[in-house]
């Protein structure tokens, strides 16, 4: 019996005895326009965010070769596509992970600590490469959450992260600068 907890809940209950006015009811009108073709939409959104879409095994090799020190999340898909990166996440200049799904609506990648090697791997190294399958692409945030709920309900990982583009800031006089703290480069490769 924690007094502060009881006090706050008691004050909340007392406060709510008075009824507040209700807001105007939302209409049935759709909030979002149609998504269209998922791959096209994802590419458009992702590239507008300065994400790099890697197409084909040659481009993938070219991309990987830019980095000397690679850390991977140890997942099956990543291992079969690029192999194992043994660098420590603290010194790696590229982190390679899978993902749970990708969102066409916003050009986002949805990862969790369970599916993608922990918290730091997808944010600490200055570049992040995501290996994905085409069937992981879903239309919108709602379907992304539905997928996560189905997969993890009742046994959630400690963290989920929706990543939408490389890191950026416009704090300095509204001038856009990439790579504030998180990765300066974010790339996605669709396998197969």
């Amino acid at each position, binding site marked *: 019996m924690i007094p502060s907890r009881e006090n706050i809940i008691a004050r*909340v209950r007392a406060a709510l005895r008075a009824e*507040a006015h209700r807001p105007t009811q939302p209409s049935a009108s759709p909030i979002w326009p149609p998504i269209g073709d998922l791959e096209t939409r994802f590419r458009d959104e992702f590239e507008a965010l300065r994400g790099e879409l890697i197409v084909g095994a040659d481009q993938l090799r070219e991309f990987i070769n830019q980095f000397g020190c690679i850390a991977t999340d140890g997942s099956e898909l990543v291992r079969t596509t690029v192999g194992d990166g043994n660098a420590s996440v603290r010194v790696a200049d590229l982190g390679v992970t899978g993902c749970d799904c990708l969102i066409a609506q916003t050009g986002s990648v949805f990862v969790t600590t369970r599916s993608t090697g922990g918290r730091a791997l997808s944010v600490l190294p200055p570049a992040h490469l995501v290996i994905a399958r085409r069937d992981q692409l879903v239309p*919108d945030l709602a379907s992304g959450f539905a997928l996560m709920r189905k997969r993890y309900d009742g046994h959630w*990982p400690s*963290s*989920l*992260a929706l990543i939408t583009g490389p*890191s950026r800031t416009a704090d300095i006089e509204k001038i856009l600068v990439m790579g504030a*703290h998180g990765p300066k480069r974010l790339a996605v490769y669709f396998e197969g």
Partner: protein
Amino acid sequence: MTAIADQFKRAAAEKAADPHHRAVLQRAIATYDAAVARGKTRFADWQNARAQAAQIKWETINHLDRYLEQFERQMIENGGRVFWAETAEDAREYILRIARSHNVRKVVKSKSMTTEEIHLNAAFAVAEIQVVETDLGEYICQIRGESPYHIVTPVMHLTKADIARTFHEKFGTAPDATAEELAGIARAQLRHEFLTADMGVTGANFLIADTGMITISTNEGNGRLSVSLPRIHIAVAGIEKLIPRLEDLALMWPVLAASGNGQAVTVYNTLLGGPRRDSETDGPEEFHVVLLDNGRTRLLADAEQRDALHCLRCGACLNACPVYRNIGGHSYGTTYQGPIGSVITPHLREAREWSHLPYASSLCGACSDVCPVRIDIHHHLLHNRRNAVRLRFDKTWERWAFRAWLWAMQTPQRYVLAGKLARVALRLGLVTPLVNPWTQGRELPEPPQHTFRLWWRNKGRDGCPQASVKKQPRRAGDNAFYQHHE
């Protein structure tokens, strides 16, 4: 006028008269306006999005006890710890206790107005625990020893040159460094801090009741780094940050981002539901959420203004406010600024001392128009003014002035006499102290020779008697005359 009100008036007057300051603000806000206009086109029906978001917050706030208990239950099940802080002091004490018991030497902080509200950094300083602000804007504020200027853009008031100068003084970097170079310097400095900090302190944009998670949104990634590397993570959040379900984020994240700065969603939206699991490779060993009351239950009890607690802290009302655009954030002298700040501060803090803020508005209503959760902000300013009068925070002379004014308005004879006196005073240049401040910079109008009602009685009625209206032919040459106002 209280000392705080006096201070506000002086600070506001100073900033309002500063053309450089205004130019910087206007530029920042113009960029914001353009981005938000673009961002809203992503919605097929922005107005309906607002209505739905308002509905979600209404549901939460009006059943807050239920959602608080659910959140706590789920958090505990996930291995997290929940602390209920009735006051700012309680929150500070708890956080310091955890820090001390774990021999914390260094804390990395992700941007959080709530931690500003409880003056956490000052408490850490007293305890000789180093605190590093990791959001670039807040980091710059910290180096400069200033408090953040705006909910979303902490250094809106500084130019790149200002920041380059600061970095030059502090780090010896080139005085004409580019924005990219400056950000790069900060990144390198802060990377070291992330890697060596003992504890991460953040706020939370939302608390999710049904899964017991918090969300943190940043564009920089400092939020994610603050909660990935240090061994302890403490999140401080007002009790009003709750939403019922995880799925509600499919709307709330885009709505917050669209109003905040025109994005589809913020770059990093992180959900945190507990310390690291056994199978996970990293993450904090301990995860605490401090649920903060600090006057929120007072606002909750005010059923009329309760929806002020729906606020998402997006900053849109600040950017829309013509007062804010001229006086900036620091002038307010308190954590929550601009229109929503002026509504909630008299509730969260001492009412009498802060009763001037709701008056520092022309009630233009731009704030209510942009609020993504449809808070009736400018009408609440009116409600706060009414409350201030009811509680007799007003000056005695003002109270009597309005009583006298009412008396004068209650019959046409008194009203006509009052009008006559006013026009005479105007003509004789007997400008009253009341009107005087207005005339600093503006010419008073020329008082007319006659009133409308006099004209109506002598000419305008056009022969139509008062009681019954009969159609009369218009007299030839009867043209209403007019003058252009000069």
